[in-house]
């Protein structure tokens, strides 16, 4: 370039800094190489792959049931939704009928999982912006959900809580009452979070107008989930292509208007309330019946391929599975991870903002590196 040969009297150089993979606010092992002019981000490069475990390839050498436990390890803060997505894809491939009772319990578990995942998001996001108390408050409620999951399936993080064709376990006695009790607690606590943040001047200044992405831009880059809805696109797999028992649930899909960090925050907070609403309906409406459908002893889907998506807490989580019809393992197993697709928007979002906003924006799109790298 011609311009670079001209050196003004006060020369400024760009500073390249490495944020991550060991950095407290990159939510795992994300590495962002920032090119800074002062504190303003001129350019950035997002480097991923530090948590790659080859889950897709591993799955091709496991039988269909064993894969469920591998899906736990993708978005490890929302294992139940991963399980549901995978099981339903296989069910779709095998055209299995899932009993209504199992579908209701799946819905309740998914929504509990969504609240747990959003609690983690809220806590870390607020902590990145400096509000440390919200972090512990959100984790306090997440703990209650983990206790509920522990009572249901014995595990607290990687649940392995679904089976192809239904569920491994029926709900324990009295569990539904505890879930409803939790719903009441959660509704109060969401108000508590809002009191701390929503109208806080500093919070508004730190989030309003930061990382704006238009509706068209969001669609073009393939965002899904709360980041997409924050930009005002009312797209939610639970509404558009209902799975589990969502077609029988009444709930609203909250959307934002301006597509900035604040709107994404508001969307997720409203999702807390909608999830509580769904859990109440699902738990109160659990029908009697079996928890597993008619599943052949040896799971061997017919030859063919299918794609099925669910709404995970992070966005559209899709599974593409190819079966050759002969072996007891998939021929090809491919995941469309919402975190990975949403992360693509990061360089675009942080350009022109300050270093302090970078951590706010990483938190705002809510990535889990286990899912990005698989």
């Amino acid at each position, binding site marked *: 370039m011609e311009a670079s040969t001209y050196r003004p009297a006060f020369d400024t150089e760009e*500073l390249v800094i490495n944020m991550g993979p060991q950095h407290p606010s990159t939510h795992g092992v994300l590495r962002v190489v920032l090119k800074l002019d002062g504190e303003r981000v001129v350019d950035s490069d997002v480097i991923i792959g530090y948590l790659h475990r080859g889950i897709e390839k591993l799955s091709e050498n496991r039988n269909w049931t064993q894969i469920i436990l591998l899906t736990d390890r993708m978005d490890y803060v929302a294992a139940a939704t991963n399980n549901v997505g995978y099981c339903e894809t296989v069910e779709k491939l095998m055209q299995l009928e899932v009993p209504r009772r199992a579908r209701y319990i799946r819905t309740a578990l998914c929504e509990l999982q969504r609240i747990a995942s959003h609690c983690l998001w809220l806590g870390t996001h607020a902590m990145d912006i400096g509000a440390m*108390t919200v972090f512990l408050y959100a984790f306090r409620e997440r703990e209650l959900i983990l206790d509920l999951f522990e009572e249901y399936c014995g595990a607290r993080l990687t649940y392995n809580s679904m089976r192809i064709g239904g569920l491994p376990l029926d709900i324990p006695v009295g569990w539904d009452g505890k879930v409803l009790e939790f719903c009441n607690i959660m509704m109060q606590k969401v108000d508590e979070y809002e009191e701390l943040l929503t109208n806080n001047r500093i919070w508004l200044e730190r989030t309003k107008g930061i990382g704006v992405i238009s509706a068209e831009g969001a669609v073009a880059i393939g965002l899904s989930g709360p980041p997409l809805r924050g930009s005002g696109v009312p797209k939610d797999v639970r509404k558009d292509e209902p799975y589990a028992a969502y077609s029988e649930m009444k709930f609203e899909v909250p959307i934002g208007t301006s597509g900035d960090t604040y709107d994404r925050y508001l969307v997720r907070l409203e999702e807390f309330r909608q999830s509580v609403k769904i859990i109440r309906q699902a738990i109160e409406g659990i029908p009697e019946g079996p928890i597993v459908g008619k599943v052949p002893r040896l799971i061997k889907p017919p030859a063919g391929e299918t794609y099925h998506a669910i709404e995970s807490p992070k966005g559209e989580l899709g599974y593409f599975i190819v079966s050759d019809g002969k072996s007891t393992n998939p021929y090809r197993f491919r995941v469309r991870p919402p975190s990975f697709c949403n992360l693509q928007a990061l360089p675009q979002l942080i350009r022109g903002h300050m*270093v302090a906003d970078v951590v706010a924006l990483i938190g705002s799109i809510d990535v889990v590196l286990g899912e990005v790298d698989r």
Partner: protein
Amino acid sequence: MIDTYLIPLLKILFVLNATLVGVTYMVLLERKVIAWVQVRLGPMRVGPYGILQPIADAVKLILKEDITPARADKWVFTAAPIIVMVPALITFAVIPFGPVVHLFGREVPLYITDINVGLLYIVSVASIGVYGIILGGWASNSKFPLLASLRASAQLISYEVAVTMTLVSLIMTAGTLSMVGIVNAQYTSRLWFIFVQPVAFVLFFIGGLAETNRAPFDMAEAEQELTGGFHTEYSGMRFALFFLAEYANMIVVSSVATTLFLGGWLAPFPNVAALSFLGYVPSWIWFLLKTFVFLYVFLWVRATLPRYRYDQLMRLGWKVLIPTAIANVVVTGIVKVLLL
């Protein structure tokens, strides 16, 4: 001989030790208070309710390996923590903890010294401390600390001006720069200056938060963004000095605010006959009580508020605090000339 050398020496030793112990326990208090806010317990292991935790922390920090990065500027790197710590401690020289009291048949003032430019001395000494932060970040020869020290210098410029302008209006009200004189002025006027200069009080408190690098203005050490900020490369006792200096500065700001706005060692509504029974409480207890309230608010703010971004902090400093402070000076001047 005793009056000129021994008593001041004893007082200096006492204040120095009390401050250092106070600072270490300030750290414990912060951990405890924030833990209570966040429905946790805080340190509980060392001693009952964790009251020996500061000692354990100190032992750990002293025994830790003291690393100087290979490419750091060694002299500046070593000097920076000292530059931070010393001003924080010597400010206590002019802070009056109480009036002149009778002790063992002698008249002993409960302050180390009373100089006629006390407030000016505090302002000037306190601003030296920031150089330590700037130099420490620069000498580390590392990128994150460098960004932090840039932030610290921006913060310094934005806030020193506002705080100093605020103090000007207070000096106009008190008519003196001596710390003891300011307290006496509040005694004569029978009112704490917080009621006379409420705007100045608010400005001073915000400025104080920024000066001490405390939340919500702690961007020079924002651990979430800059991984610890200016002290990223420091370890062991040198790190501890930065840490202690921050808490010492909090105590300084709190005691200065107490002296200037809350009547220092005076009881509420001093010199009012109806409330004279409050005078039975020793003066230094009033002082400590008020300082403690300030310190508690510091911790409370940290537990509650998110952090400002540093351009927003500068905007707040230049566009809100400095104009308000100047307006306050003008109004004080007009009122003083016309009405008094």
